[in-house]
């Protein structure tokens, strides 16, 4: 393997940048930004070089050093370099790089500019660590680092109570999932005796240690362990019922939302599922598929009635993540990863476009206070349109191909999920065009909207770049690469450009045409309802349902009333126990008794030598009597 040092360099450059910024260049804004951006861009160039030298399938896909050995537990710190991780690295550094550059423009006026870039670099480092990990423990460590850095970034404007709360919520919700993940990891360590992915895969394939036990027990044990690992993905990728943190994470700066929603964090969950695809039993996979499908539908329905531009995109992310998880659940991790990559392009694009709008309107996020931005901000509008079309899944935009490959496998494996997927596709188109019609077309609704102006080049060029990839991302051969990775023998995915463009129609015409039909239906509905309207017509038409949708089906309130209430009660009881029994009876009680006894004994110490002598002699007499008197 050539250039073996490069992956290490790529991994640690952002960490170095973060440390260097925090230690030395906090006062120098330009230098901080340049350091952070060059770390991630160098990472991108480095990954390209590495792929150029070794291809997507290096001869030796793993490099590792022993990190610590405790008894029977050998923990390696290693890098896994195969098509999956290399592709993901390109996405993280590429899309991440665009977001880094964009941030320079967006955060220009923030007084904590350097801290922002340091956190951003730390985030990139953690995500690269998750991507490159070759064993569960290393992945878990970086997984937690992703959680920490997301906490730092979501709560970046910590002076605002809502941002601080959102950061805490994201972190704690993730912790719930991570606890399951940790249990899953421990289960696999207990079963397979190793944490290395390759070793676990071998163990699963060979079935060593299965023979002696009842196969039903083994199967259910493996299902349980797989679902525990999936818990981690549920937290990070915000699947129902741990989805509540993602919309609140919008409290962070918009480029951070783009980074969390596109290239990192939420992608980590799906990536982990794809990386460990071999551990899931059929039962576990069907649970995963239905959790994903349900999340996709729920989030899409909620997105229809949101009015905050970033919240619409946040729910759209949730819904698309549900799609990806569903893809993994219907035995198509390649389709899920493919959608993850194209989604990274267009969702980053959409978020950065939204950021550009918000920046131009002086932090106005309500789409009903925008309007007419097409004329004021042409670059933002057209790139946003590209993102919308890609997200909706219009041929030949990238989203079409990835969504189609998911629908095609869903059709093959579970008709119910296929119908659900098509419905979600229609809803996706509907809410995205609602957003476009209200925010960009029609009349200007406020004076800010009529005085908006295009963002600076440092913000528009990343938009152009991402728009290009959102357009062509579907035909770059990513899907062929991924299917080839999961099925080296049976993959017959074409590589020619024309063949790829028409592949969905030839391969699964039903899925492709149903997908396009749902897009058309969604578009027509949005056009019918939202073209040139002054206010939202839906609440009047569907009444209470609209209120439920706007309030996210009251999940936050439900959790408030159940989980949080329960936790508060438990906390009160434990607090009482700690305050009165542990601290009161045990600690203060011991101290008090010692003190009382001490005070009583002090009375004996008269300070008169003669009393002591007398007592001493008395003692001697007693001893003598005891020894000799009998």
């Amino acid at each position, binding site marked *: 393997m050539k250039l073996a040092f490069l992956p290490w360099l790529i991994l640690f450059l952002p960490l170095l940048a973060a440390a260097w910024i925090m230690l030395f260049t906090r006062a120098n804004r330009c230098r901080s930004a340049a350091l952070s951006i060059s770390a991630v861009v160098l990472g991108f160039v480095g990954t390209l070089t590495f792929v150029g030298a070794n291809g997507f399938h290096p001869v030796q896909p793993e490099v590792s050093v022993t990190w610590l050995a405790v008894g029977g537990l050998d923990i390696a710190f290693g890098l896994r370099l195969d098509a999956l991780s290399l592709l993901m690295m390109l996405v993280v550094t590429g899309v991440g790089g665009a977001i880094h550059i964009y941030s320079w423009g967006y955060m220009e006026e923030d007084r904590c500019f350097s801290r922002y870039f340091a956190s951003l670099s730390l985030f990139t480092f953690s995500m690269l660590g998750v991507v490159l990990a070759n064993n569960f423990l290393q992945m878990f460590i970086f997984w937690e680092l992703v959680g920490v850095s997301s906490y730092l970034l979501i709560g970046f404007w910590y002076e605002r109570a809502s941002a601080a709360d959102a950061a805490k919520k994201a972190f704690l919700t993730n912790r719930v999932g991570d606890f399951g993940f940790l249990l899953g990891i421990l289960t696999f360590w207990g079963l397979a005796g190793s944490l290395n992915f390759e070793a676990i895969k071998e163990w699963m394939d060979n079935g060593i240690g299965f023979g002696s036990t009842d196969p039903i027990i083994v199967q259910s044990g493996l299902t349980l362990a797989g679902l525990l690992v999936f818990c981690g993905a549920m937290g990070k990728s915000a699947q129902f019922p741990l989805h509540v943190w993602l919309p609140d994470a919008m409290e962070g700066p918009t480029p951070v939302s783009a980074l969390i929603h596109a290239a990192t964090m939420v992608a980590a969950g799906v990536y982990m599922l794809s990386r460990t695809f071999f551990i899931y039993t059929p039962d576990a996979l069907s649970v995963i598929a239905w959790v994903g499908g349900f999340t996709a539908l729920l989030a899409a329905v909620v997105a229809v009635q949101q009015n905050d531009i970033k919240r619409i995109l946040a729910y759209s992310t949730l819904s698309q993540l549900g799609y990806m998880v569903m893809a993994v659940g219907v035995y198509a991790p390649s389709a899920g990863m493919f959608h993850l990559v194209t989604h990274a392009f267009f969702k980053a694009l959409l978020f950065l476009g939204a950021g550009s709008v918000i920046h131009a309107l002086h932090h106005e996020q309500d789409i009903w206070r925008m309007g007419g931005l097409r004329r004021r901000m042409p670059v933002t509008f057209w790139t946003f349109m590209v993102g919308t079309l890609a997200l909706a899944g219009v041929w030949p935009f990238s989203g079409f191909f990835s969504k189609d490959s998911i629908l095609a496998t869903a059709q093959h494996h579970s008709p119910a999920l296929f119908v659900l997927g098509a419905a979600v596709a229609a809803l996706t188109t509907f809410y995205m065009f609602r957003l476009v019609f209200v925010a960009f077309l029609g009349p200007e609704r406020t004076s800010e909207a009529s005085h908006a102006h295009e963002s600076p080049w440092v913000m528009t060029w990343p938009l152009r770049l991402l728009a290009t990839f959102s357009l062509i991302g579907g035909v770059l051969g990513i899907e062929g690469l991924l299917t080839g990775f999961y099925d080296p023998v049976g993959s017959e995915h074409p590589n020619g450009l024309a063949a790829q463009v028409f592949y969905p129609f030839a391969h699964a015409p039903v899925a492709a045409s149903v997908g396009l039909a749902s897009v058309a239906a969604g578009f027509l509905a949005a056009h019918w309802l939202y073209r040139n309207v002054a206010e939202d017509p839906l609440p009047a038409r569907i009444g209470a349902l609209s209120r439920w949708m706007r309030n996210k089906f009251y999940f936050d309130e439900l959790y408030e009333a159940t989980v949080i209430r329960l936790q508060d009660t438990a906390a009160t009881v434990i607090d009482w126990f700690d305050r009165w029994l542990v601290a009161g009876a045990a600690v203060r009680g011991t101290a008090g008794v010692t003190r009382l006894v001490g005070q009583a004994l*002090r009375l004996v*110490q008269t*300070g*008169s*030598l*003669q009393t002591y*002598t*007398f007592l001493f*002699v008395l003692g001697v007499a007693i001893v003598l009597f005891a020894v000799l008197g009998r």
Partner: protein
Amino acid sequence: MTPALHHYLIVSALLFSLGLLGVVTRRSLLIIYMSLELMLNAANLALVAFSRFNNHLDGQVMVFFIITVAAAEVAVGLALIVAIFRRRQTTHVEDLATLKL
């Protein structure tokens, strides 16, 4: 009637008890000191008596040592008492309470 061992020991015990009584009850440092010497000599008497009746000279040797040490001790002790008296104008033990809590 020649005195036997237990006669000597009874005298020794009486002397020791008198000395102890003095140490415990008297309040003057000097008297306490003299009582202490009395106790020491009671012990000497017992040792000498044992030595004599067991035909063994070890006890005598030990007594010589005790007398020597006691002489040195008396010198040091009296010097301390004189020093205390010079400083505090008293040798009454109940006045010497500065170390008391």
